């Protein structure tokens, strides 16, 4: 066993670290303290365009379409450094979700039309999967697309559509044929959000913010040319995408950074004159998390090492999403606990100084929005179903 990177890889790590230190300014994208919410979109696009200019926007893509050509190790280092620097991941819907489907299953015309604008962040994408009646049971979806000459006519509702309010395009799973096995009869469509008949309705989430939406389709015309692959085969393409989505969901580097900040905060917050970090019970709660994270870091490394050696990730890869999200939530719980009374105070007429804690507002929001982590991307219960079947053979 050997945990060390090669000298070459260390050199690469230093280059990445240097670039992040020089180019990333936290205020660019930090949602904290940013007044109008639309700043978030501009800030993310500004940062993504910097990565694009550097050629680092899409490490996961094949080189011919604009990927970096990095080794598995370099990709891993890049992700780790990003998390450690506290830099948010790119908005995933275009770069990490629909692009792999387009370059794997799309036509030449689709690749030429969509991929360059995803790379340059000129198009903002969102994901039209979930419906009011189709959550974890995605195949229950009922939005229909009726074939009519050169177009499909789409009718239905998509829900929990993250950041749809900014989107130029949406990729959707729609039902094109009824009365056959549920997974069959689904097609994968790319839909221009400016098409008449589409309405985006905001959903305010329990963190008091608007990132979720409902997207309504009323007789929306979608050119057949915007269908990925064959009609009724969309489920296959979506499944390939999910496999793509599932790698790298442990976010260990991000959690390590969050934990480091939590410890510093715990050293500053006092109770009865004693720093919270000295409190034995608080220490116990902290180390329960820290030790699990130390283990998860090595679980992630084990997965990475077998992939770097050209193999498939072992069964341990299946637990990354479950443990990663549980640990993220556990850290958020302690953040909120540290914020004490101020965690509940809503920012309105008060500014951060008046609130006493500039982190309390963030702690509350992280905690509340963080509940979503064990729901999205296949709820953790569904993940357990998957492991029971695929790994344990139950």
């Amino acid at each position, binding site marked *: 066993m050997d*945990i060390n990177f090669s000298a070459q890889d260390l050199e690469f790590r230093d280059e990445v670290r240097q670039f992040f230190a020089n180019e990333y300014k936290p205020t660019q994208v930090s949602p904290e303290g940013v007044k109008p919410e639309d700043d978030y979109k501009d800030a993310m696009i500004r940062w993504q365009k910097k990565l694009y200019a550097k050629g680092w926007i899409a490490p996961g893509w094949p080189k011919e379409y604009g990927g970096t050509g990095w080794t598995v190790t370099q990709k891993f280092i890049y992700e780790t450094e990003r998390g450690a620097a506290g830099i948010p991941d790119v908005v995933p819907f275009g770069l990490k979700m629909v692009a792999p489907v387009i370059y794997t299953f799309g036509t030449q015309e689709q690749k030429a039309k969509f991929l360059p604008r995803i790379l340059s962040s000129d198009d903002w994408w969102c994901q039209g999967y979930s419906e009011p009646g189709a959550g974890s049971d995605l195949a229950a979806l009922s939005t229909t697309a009726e074939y009519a000459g050169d177009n499909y006519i789409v009718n239905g509702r998509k829900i929990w559509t993250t950041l749809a309010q900014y989107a130029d395009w949406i990729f959707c799973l729609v039902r094109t044929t009824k009365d056959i096995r549920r997974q069959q009869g689904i097609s994968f469509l790319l839909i221009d959000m400016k098409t008449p008949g589409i309405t985006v309705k905001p959903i305010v989430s329990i963190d008091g913010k608007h990132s979720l939406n409902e997207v309504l389709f009323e007789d929306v015309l979608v050119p057949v040319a915007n269908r990925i692959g064959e009609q009724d085969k969309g489920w296959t393409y979506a499944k390939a995408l999910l496999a793509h989505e599932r790698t790298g969901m442990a976010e260990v580097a991000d959690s390590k950074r969050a934990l480091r900040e939590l410890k510093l905060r715990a050293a500053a917050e006092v109770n009865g004159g004693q720093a919270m970090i000295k409190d034995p019970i608080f220490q116990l709660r902290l180390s329960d998390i820290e030790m699990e994270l130390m283990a998860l870091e090595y679980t992630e490394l084990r997965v990475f090492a077998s992939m770097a050696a050209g193999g498939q990730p072992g069964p341990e890869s299946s637990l990354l999403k479950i443990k990663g999200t549980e640990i993220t939530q556990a850290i958020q719980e302690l953040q909120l606990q540290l914020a004490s009374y101020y965690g509940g105070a809503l920012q309105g007429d008060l500014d951060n100084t008046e609130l006493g804690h500039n982190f309390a507002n963030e702690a509350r929001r992280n905690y509340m929005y963080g509940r979503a982590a064990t729901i999205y991307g296949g709820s953790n219960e569904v993940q357990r179903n998957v492991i029971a079947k695929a790994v*344990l053979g139950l």
Partner: protein
Amino acid sequence: MNFDFSEEQTMIKDSVARFVRDEYDFDTRRKIIDSEEGMSRDFWATFAELGWLSVPFAEEYGGFGGTAEDLAAIMEELGKGIVVEPFVSTVVVFGGLLSASTNEPLKEAIIPSVIDGSCLGSFAFLERQSRYEMADVTTTATACDGGYSITGEKTVVFNGGIADKFVVTARTSGSQFDRQGISLFLVDSKAAGVTVKSYKTMDGQRAATVTFDNVIVAADQLLKGVGEGLDLVDGVMPTVLMALSAEALGIMSMLNSLTVEYSKTRQQFGTPISSFQALQHRMVDMFIACEQTKSMLYRGLCDANDIAANPEMDNTELLKSVHALKATVAKFGRKVGEEAIQLHGGIGMTDELNIGHYVKRLMTINVTFGDGDYHQKKFNHLSYSSL
């Protein structure tokens, strides 16, 4: 970066696994436990022949020159068979202390006899009041004609009844809780004034209460300088804790596979109980607990490898990893053990089934050289006290 065992390690791991599978079935083990000595001398000779007893010792003493990683590879497989022969107490602990000794003539005299299987040893450190604090020592060693005179009582000395030699912690200066002033002596179990009272422990193994009544030990039987005993023990402990944790990992993985298999065959309500989601999720959590424990073990082993390659390196990261590992084994080991019994239902309650015996060894490991709370507290101190 890689997490594979080397070719050599895989060979020895496979050889231990083969032994457990072909020679060490549950009935054989039961007969050994019920035998007078509580171990099989024949199997011990086999271990010596196969070279397993030589693994941690330096080549100059006839050893294999192995690392913590080598030991972990062996221990994981021994754990799968809950092997009761005194590999931990004689090779890992007693052998580890000898290896770290600075007394060259002593090492040259004893280590070869451990390797060839003729000497069984144990570490006599625990006293009735000392719980997990190695420094809490009331046994005394007083300078006298011919060396030192040792007086005191040691309890739960693992495999003490069959030990030929003990390494004993005895106070040469200072008061009861001082870390300084503790010396390590090699004491023959047949020496005048040594009384050994052996008994069974819940895990099918044996331990003993050993009393020392003015036992005279020559000064050349000191493992290290007078009063420097605890430093030596501290240096050995990471390897010991990782070996025990590897054994626990082997046990946990056995409990998991036995439980999954059983759930597929046990029928209730007209269907295998493996089809029930409530049970599936519990077995998934057992699987996760086992994988996370393995990752923590690998973390410790990698830290140890780093230090072996660079002995001047600060060892705080290794200590944090090892404390976290032992705390993780305690937490997840208990979880896996309790769930295995629960999912087996009534049959899991029986002495006849192997499940309970795996669980009892896990429980013993959990209190050996510090329980989970003890190690978590140590971890907390290393991690948070300077913030």
